[in-house]
């Protein structure tokens, strides 16, 4: 029978029960491979529930650093009877099944075309442990031990990681080491080790770090100088605010234990954005973290922030909508509701980080942008980059960088200036000057409102003043085009009339898909959009190609809507490639869709290296 053989290049999946403590054991397994210098890309697939429902942990071991979800599974660790059938069915032919053989299983429950390894895990823990919780926990460590033998993962590395994990609680080390050895020894003694899939120490990780996007974005907010955070818990954004709390305790507590920050868990999203707006109006850098339903609730306030020109930063960690949708699944489906948030004519600035490194960078930049433009700025994450550990470039910071507070008039400036008009376009860039409340006893005070007012912030219902203001806001949006992050281009090895646009968490799948397409002789230039509004480079990329694909993780091609609307592109030129079932998009899917389209246009493949397919 066929047997999948691979070194440092396979997918192993753990099927567990939610709340059974398997998470830390699984992460331990993934990290140990990483420590061997072999890139991994793990993903949690968890239910909207706390305990008892199925959860999966999928680890892609990838020598070539393909960090997207690959799809399929080569080695299944089937620990959950509820999902046994589906889990077994998912294994690639010639793949491997590892299961708890304590209770004998009828042959009918297995497959002919896979390699089955049974280990009496329950029996082992029951003989070695009496306490129920211990049995539960150590069972997980034991299977990690067994896997170290089956896949040749260096046990010393695992022990090293356990040691780091329990730093300070050293008494916990021996029992964990024992459990590990128990599993490993059993496997070496009774199971055929190794299987066709093995991990071999390498040096392919380099200086890269292994981080979650939410944690990185929260750190970005710290470096961006955010002092006020108002949030309301919602999956998958809660861990962003919680990471900010953690970072603040560490980096923002002064000598006498006082907090150089204020974090409020608000009563709902209307309140959290309201607090952010109030704090930003009053000169503090403030943000909130939320997800789709929160963005919907914030619409009225977002219109106020646009019209009253309040800097405010929002981290939208997107999940599958509409409505409650699938809270623990990923999507890019809030693009439109953020870009045009609120009734009336509005346009908002969006940033699209593609990995934790950019989550950090954009997380910090967003605050400068918001102050510079005096308008809300959205950092658009999603569950896939927000809540999974991802290998990425290390975080970097230039110590000469100063917080850019934008156009703010101080008391001195007010005394020097001949006039102050809150909404006067002094510089022609559509961005007026503002003052913080309390700046000057007699100068620079003004009234902020969501109702129409003139250039001096005086209330008016005059149509001309209203139009004047609305047009200035458009000028300001023009200015934004030069301030937001530029797109990044990857040019194909061969000239091509085809281009592809993509953004955010689609990035790793796209990179891999481009390689696959190139390998099969299909060449496509690619541009990763990193922000809205769109700069001229994007328009030029589109006009430089005859057909442009646009890859998104939503049903309605929302970014495409923005592109055709804002850049006046003929829709016929933009072919949507849409993946929206809530799982992270794969290279297989993208390459498949694009290849199919090109076939339809009967494009003849140009092989780069003969026979390289």
């Amino acid at each position: 029978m066929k047997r999948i053989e691979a070194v440092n290049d396979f997918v192993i999946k753990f099927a567990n029960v939610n709340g059974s403590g398997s998470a830390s054991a699984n992460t331990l397994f993934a990290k140990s491979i990483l420590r061997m210098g072999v890139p991994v890309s793990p993903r949690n697939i968890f239910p909207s529930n706390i305990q008892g429902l199925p959860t999966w942990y999928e680890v892609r071991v990838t020598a070539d650093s393909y960090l997207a979800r690959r799809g399929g599974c080569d080695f299944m660790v089937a620990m959950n009877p509820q999902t046994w059938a589906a889990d077994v069915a998912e294994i690639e032919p010639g793949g491997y099944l590892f299961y708890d053989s304590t209770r004998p299983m009828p042959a009918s429950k297995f497959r002919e075309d896979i390699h089955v390894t049974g280990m009496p895990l329950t029996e082992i823990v029951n003989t070695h442990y009496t306490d129920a919780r211990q049995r539960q926990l150590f069972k997980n460590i034991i299977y990690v031990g067994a896997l170290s033998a089956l896949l040749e993962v260096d046990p010393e590395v695992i022990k090293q990681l356990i040691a780091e994990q329990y730093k300070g609680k050293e008494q916990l080390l021996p029992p964990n080491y024992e459990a590990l050895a128990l599993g490993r020894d059993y496997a070496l003694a009774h199971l055929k080790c190794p299987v066709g899939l093995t991990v071999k120490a390498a040096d392919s990780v380099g200086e890269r770090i292994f981080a979650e996007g939410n944690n990185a974005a929260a750190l970005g907010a710290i470096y961006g100088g955010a002092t006020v955070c108002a949030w309301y818990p919602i999956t998958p954004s809660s861990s962003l605010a919680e990471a900010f709390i953690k970072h603040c305790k560490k980096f923002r507590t002064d000598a006498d234990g006082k907090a150089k920050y204020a974090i409020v868990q608000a009563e709902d999203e209307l309140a959290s954005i309201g607090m952010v707006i109030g704090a930003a109006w009053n000169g503090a850098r403030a943000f909130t973290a939320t997800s789709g339903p929160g963005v919907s609730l914030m619409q009225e306030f977002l219109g106020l922030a646009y019209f009253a020109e309040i800097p405010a930063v929002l981290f939208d960690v997107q999940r599958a909508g509409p409505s409650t949708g699938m809270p623990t699944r990923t999507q890019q489906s809030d693009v439109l509701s953020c870009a045009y948030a609120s009734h009336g004519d509005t346009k908002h600035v969006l940033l699209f980080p593609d990995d934790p490194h950019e989550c950090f960078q954009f997380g910090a930049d967003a605050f400068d942008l918001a102050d510079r433009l005096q308008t809300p700025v959205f950092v658009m994450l999603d569950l896939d980059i927000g809540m999974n550990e991802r290998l990425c470039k290390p975080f970097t910071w230039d110590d000469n960088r100063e917080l850019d507070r934008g156009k703010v008039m101080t008391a001195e400036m007010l005394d020097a200036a001949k006039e102050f008009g809150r909404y006067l376009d002094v510089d022609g860039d559509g961005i007026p000057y503002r003052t913080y409340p309390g700046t000057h006893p007699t100068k620079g005070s003004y009234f902020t409102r969501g109702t129409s007012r003139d250039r001096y912030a005086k209330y008016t219902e005059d149509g001309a003043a209203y139009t004047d203001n609305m047009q200035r806001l458009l000028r300001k949006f023009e200015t934004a085009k030069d301030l937001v992050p530029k797109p990044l281009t990857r040019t194909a090895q061969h000239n091509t009339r085809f281009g592809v646009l993509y953004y955010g968490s689609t990035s790793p799948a796209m990179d891999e898909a481009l390689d696959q397409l190139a390998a099969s002789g299909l060449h496509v230039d690619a541009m990763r959009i990193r922000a809205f509004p769109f700069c001229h480079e994007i328009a030029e990329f589109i006009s430089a190609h005859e057909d442009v694909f646009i890859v998104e993780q939503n049903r309605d091609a929302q970014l495409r809507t923005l592109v055709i609307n804002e850049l006046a592109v003929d829709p016929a030129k933009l072919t949507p490639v849409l993946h929206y079932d809530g799982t992270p998009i794969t290279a297989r899917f993208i390459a498949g869709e694009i290849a199919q389209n090109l076939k339809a246009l009967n494009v003849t493949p140009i092989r780069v290296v003969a026979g390289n397919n």
Partner: protein
Amino acid sequence: MTYIAKPKLHHPKLPTNALGFTRRDYEGAISTLCAGCGHDSISAAIIQACFELDLPPHRIAKLSGIGCSSKTPTYFLGNSHGFNSVHGRMPSVLTGANLANRDLIYLGVSGDGDSASIGLGQFAHVMRRGVNMTYIVENNGVYGLTKGQFSATSDKGSKSKRGAINADEAIDLAALAMQLGATYVARSFSGDKTQLVPLIKGALLHTGAALLDVISPCVAFNNHAGSTKSYDYVREHNDAVNFLDVITMHKEITADYSPGELQEIRQHDGSILRLRKLHEGYDASDRIAAMNFLQESRAKGEIATGLLYVDDEPNDLHAASNTVTVPLNVLDTADLVPGSAALAKINAALR
């Protein structure tokens, strides 16, 4: 960023306060409200209170929601920054502003529709959090700006100008605030400036969540017979529990009363709230008794006014958040950005 206001030159006859400001310096634009609207009297009382307390006008931030009442911040304290936000959500905006700069005085102005109907949730939560502010509800029992529909404070059974009878229970914002943890709770009447001005002064000096529920008749839509928020009705049913006299530090204490009828409460800033009791044995420092009293007087159809409850040891959101004494909005790069060295450590920990 604390700024000492420079006294200005004025018409010699105008009286000035300790800062050398005249009452004019506390005024705002001309009101566009209906002639006789209770809200205008409240604006006047606010001006009076700030003038008498010698507050630097620009150190006050005025925030409001939407409504005739919420328009009023334009009509007082012209040298203060103001924020006319969205309907019912002023409390959250004020909370955020307060967090950004603990050194300013926060004055929230709202209406009964703004606070008790659409805004009830935020009203409740801002009180729970003990935000240091003066929150004034200009309570007329109707939606003035949208032409007279019932609000959530209009009493069950009261009659609208068009003759409709209100069937829902009225919300008593003062009672609610007390239950939710506000530390200074008063009720007054726009028509009684002598009672209102000291209550506003006490609130402005209070270092916690202060609520003033001020009944403020709407002459356009709720001043008719059958309304329980009309000038006549309120005058008839007004039942003041005490009379407040605010003594700031620099004023020495003079007048003397026989002990029994007096209650003195020293506030954090050193000012003293001297309460002359008009109700036998009413103790403004006993929260539960005060709540009970409110329920009973309401059952009797009376409108209890005065300083209903005050906690002389209020805690505010900054205390709870243990924030630094300097305003967060003045912290700069050096204070806030950990720098590349710290980042290197973080990177190391993520490998």
